[in-house]
């Protein structure tokens, strides 16, 4: 039996706040039988009556934060993550076609650019970039993420990247898993507190340059110089406001140029480090062979033939910004399926549900960027870890005694 706390969201203003549990305004997707008592309460917003029912955590949302510089909700990481949970994430149907939000069965991905307090013109006037905290409304971000986490739908603003304007809000119903993606998911300490897990995607300058060349070179107006100038001009704000969030992340995916090819500057072959914080609740770091030890592993040899430049793994404990971490590192590329299976079979604590699940997920999205290197591999593994974390949270809350209704 589930018992739920329902607060009328100010924006919903429904006359009947809790009669039908399946009413989608309240964000509940299953029919639930529950007992409730009506409590007279004067709320800040002046309504004198609200019904209150204490909630079991089944309707509580798990919140994941992802810090990345590459735009919102369209990143490969998001697509891999939502795929682990099943289904593809799509923009909300029937709403603003320029919405940044993605919705699948289990997950909703929100773009934090939607919390810009200044639109493109406003930022120009004030002389601040989008990276600057001054351009973002952290109070609103905190309020709304908190509300969603508690099972309350919100009317979230939309930042339109095409026009550079703030569009009218869209309704976001609380999902099972809420992912907040953007430049500042871990910037505000109150928002940080709400995150059940956080990831920082740390792309080195050389790789960033190579990726942006691939992205922009076909565009009229761009040249190597303009791409370089754009990265350099944004770097001071990036280093001041975005980069420091690394220290708060439960997992950092660091993308660097390979060490296998001397002087490789094409960013083709990558060295990727998965830095996992120790002691995070419900998160057990992946390891190679012997947990807590230090290992250097080249899988290519007699049993496995790899093509140039091969694959090299490293695993070991380290300290990262004062925290104990475990680092799993992959340098090189997968060229064949059997290389991937071989590697998967030697990793432990993957949180897979069956042998070969990592490989299967990678194959499912073989056309995604990074499918042949550590970025795809570690993004997939983190996706499985998040699934595991989610299931553990749900299980732990179901086991907890039901809270008494508030008098």
């Amino acid at each position, binding site marked *: 039996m589930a018992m739920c706390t329902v607060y009328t969201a100010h924006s919903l203003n429904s006359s009947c706040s809790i009669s039908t549990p399946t009413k989608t305004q309240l964000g509940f997707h299953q029919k639930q039988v529950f007992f409730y008592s009506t409590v007279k309460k004067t709320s800040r917003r002046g309504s004198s009556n609200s019904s209150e029912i204490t909630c079991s955590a089944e309707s509580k949302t798990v919140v994941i934060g992802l810090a990345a510089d*590459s*735009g919102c909700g*369209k990143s490969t990481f998001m697509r891999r993550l939502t795929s682990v949970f099943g289904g593809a994430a799509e*923009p909300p*149907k*029937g709403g603003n*076609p320029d919405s940044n939000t993605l919705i699948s069965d289990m997950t909703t991905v929100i773009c934090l650019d939607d919390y810009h307090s200044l639109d*493109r013109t406003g*930022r*120009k006037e004030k*002389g*601040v*970039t*989008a*990276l600057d905290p001054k351009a973002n409304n952290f109070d609103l971000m905190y309020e709304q993420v908190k509300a969603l986490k508690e099972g309350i739908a919100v009317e979230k603003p939309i930042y339109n*990247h*095409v026009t*550079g304007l703030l569009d009218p809000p869209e309704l976001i119903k609380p999902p099972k898993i809420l992912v907040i993606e953007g430049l500042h998911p871990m910037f505000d300490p109150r928002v940080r507190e709400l995150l059940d897990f956080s990831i920082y995607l740390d792309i080195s300058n050389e790789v960033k340059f190579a990726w*942006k*060349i*691939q*992205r*922009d*070179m*076909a*565009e*009229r*107006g*761009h040249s190597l110089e*303009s791409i370089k*100038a*754009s990265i*350099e*001009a*944004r770097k*001071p*704000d990036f280093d001041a406001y975005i980069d420091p969030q690394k220290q708060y992340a439960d997992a950092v995916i660091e993308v660097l140029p390979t060490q296998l090819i001397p002087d490789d500057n*094409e960013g*083709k072959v990558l060295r990727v480090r998965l830095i996992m914080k120790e002691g995070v609740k419900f998160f057990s770091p992946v390891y190679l062979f012997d947990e807590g030890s230090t290992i250097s592993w080249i899988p290519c040899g007699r049993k496995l033939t790899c093509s140039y430049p091969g694959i090299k793994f490293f695993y070991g404990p380290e300290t990262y910004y004062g925290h104990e971490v475990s680092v799993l590192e992959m340098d090189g590329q997968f060229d064949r399926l059997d290389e991937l299976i071989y590697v998967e079979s030697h990793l432990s604590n993957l949180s897979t549900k069956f042998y070969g699940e990592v490989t299967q997920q990678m194959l499912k999205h*073989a*056309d*995604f*960027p990074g*499918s*042949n290197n550590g970025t795809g591999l570690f993004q997939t593994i983190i996706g499985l870890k998040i699934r595991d974390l989610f299931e553990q949270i749900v299980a732990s809350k179901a086991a907890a005694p039901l809270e008494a209704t508030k008098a």
Partner: protein
Amino acid sequence: MASFLALKCRGRKIGGLSIKAMAVSKFKGTQMREKHLTEMIEKKVQEAQQVCEGDQTSDECKVAWDEVEEVSQAKADLRRKLEKQDPLESFCQDNPETDECRIYED
């Protein structure tokens, strides 16, 4: 670079970095967004180059390049969405009569 792109583009043969042949917009609204973003990129790059001539460390300079980044990413996102289907597909199913939803004909 070529093998990476081949993997990315599902075996379609492409030379260099050109991906113009990838996907075509179906609705007028999408075609207009594409055109707008393309023009914005050109315009914003020029603006940034001019603004930064004076002082490369000025606020105006970094804001100008930040705008370039924003529109470049927006264009890339649109291109990527187009690979699957026109992003206005579902909107236009519900609103076929709007100007944005006129079928774009070459």
